[in-house]
């Protein structure tokens, strides 16, 4: 009988100990989760401050023009021949004239096209020890135009003419993604300051594939965003474009981060 009582008492003790242990563990988990939540909010706050303005915010208009899309060129032609190594490719000066000639077959150079870049493309043999390009094998000369509507740039994949030229000015590839516009009306826009707040909260029209931590903004401008050429985009409405590079990045070309400017 005494032995039975002892066993029952032991069971009670173990039951109580188990309850205490479970309570301690559950409490710790709740406390840890609570602290984690707080820690995440703290990091969020601090990381938002890590987007740095290297310039002053520009003066902000109350309204900006919106445009209707009235027509579209959607051309993409490319050939594996473009990858082949060529004996010669056009110089950058020659390439601009040749590109305009090529474009005649594709509706010509639009009035709102602005030359963005001309460059000779080559396969490069690179020595990993010395860090030197030892040899180059020419492939094509690339001529790229972007759209600029009355001083306001259009960014995105759907506003570009990109032509690759090979030997004797042969067109190796052409991409013409262009929407023709007609003025619609003036629309109210948020200030650059409000747009910067949106940027800090990650409210972008398109998400970049890099963290925004350490981003330095070097230029801010009102413009437009053109969707992929297959998209049936009906209008161009204003966006604030924040051009930036990451702190310490070796990329000299600032990348555009678009924020919807519509009020």
């Amino acid at each position, binding site marked *: 009988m005494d032995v039975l009582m002892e066993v029952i008492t032991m069971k009670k003790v173990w039951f109580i100990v188990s309850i205490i242990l479970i309570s301690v563990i559950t409490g710790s988990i709740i406390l840890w989760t609570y602290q984690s939540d707080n820690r995440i909010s703290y990091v969020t706050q601090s990381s938002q401050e890590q987007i740095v303005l290297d310039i002053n915010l520009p003066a902000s208009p109350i309204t900006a023009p919106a445009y209707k899309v009235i027509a579209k060129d959607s051309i993409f032609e490319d050939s594996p021949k473009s990858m082949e190594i060529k004996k010669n490719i056009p110089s950058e000066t020659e390439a601009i004239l040749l590109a305009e000639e090529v474009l005649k077959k594709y509706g010509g150079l639009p009035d709102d096209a602005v030359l963005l870049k001309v460059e000779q493309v080559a*396969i490069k*043999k690179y020595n990993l020890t010395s860090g030197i390009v030892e040899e180059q094998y020419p492939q094509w000369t690339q001529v790229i135009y972007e759209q600029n509507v009355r001083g306001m740039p259009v960014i995105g994949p759907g506003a570009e003419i*990109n032509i690759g030229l090979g030997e004797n000015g042969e067109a190796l590839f052409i991409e013409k993604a262009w929407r023709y516009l007609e003025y619609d009306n003036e629309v109210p826009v948020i200030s650059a300051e409000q747009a910067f707040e949106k940027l800090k909260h990650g409210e972008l029209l398109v998400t970049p594939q890099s963290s925004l931590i350490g981003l330095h903004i070097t230029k801010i401008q009102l413009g437009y965003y053109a969707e992929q050429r297959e998209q049936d985009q009906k209008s161009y409405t204003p966006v604030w474009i924040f051009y930036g590079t990451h702190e310490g990045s*070796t990329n000299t070309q600032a990348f555009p981060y678009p924020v919807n400017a519509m009020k």
Partner: protein
Amino acid sequence: MKLRILVITGLILVLLTVITIPVSAYEYSMTSVSVYNNPPPGSALPYANEIHNNVQSWLTGAGWTQRFYEFNPYVEDTDFGSQNSGYQGLDEADLHYHFGHGINVNGETRVEYQDYPNSYLERGEVYKKWDLTNKWVVLDACEVLANLQWGSALKTSHGILGFSTEKTPDPNLPDRFFRELITYDDTIGYSWKRATLDTYGGSVTARVVFDTQNQLLYDHLSGQGTVQPNENPDDNTIYYDEWTC
């Protein structure tokens, strides 16, 4: 007698099943990080599922099998073949596709993991380590190939396809890339060029890094055309190509 008939019938059925199952000669692997602990909130990436589905759909359709798919908190160095023994990560599959954030810090570029900046992949972790079955690694992330020293990872692997600038997520990219490779049997280098030109605008620069010039010019996806030999001996040079999209 009945038992014998049953056993024979069973064996025939097993044999028929084995014969009719398509032999998957090639394998791919994938890693994807779309959720990040350290925001701003916009740093979470859209389209991770679509991108995985596109890669999977094209490759399984061509008879490939998925070796592994790790995502978000489960992505770590070992998936990128950082070990020389045991689990070899991407080394164990012909092609690896990674989707996520990349960043350039003072010229050193990193593949960001979920708890970046606490953990990330840098080139030193995979120096001369991409070998075994692997031939190609796609880094669908910002800026990683801005540093050409990633080419040092190519021990016997052939090439790395990626970007030297910022970019944005787009499921059209793998869709167009694998369409070129599988439907049109185009080369790896050209398919990447065509897919990136078609998908992005002039603010994005795509780059490929290969161990030999012939691999850059003539490698096809395994099963879709010729694949050039591995580099031998290792001459510590790479061939790269880049273009504005």
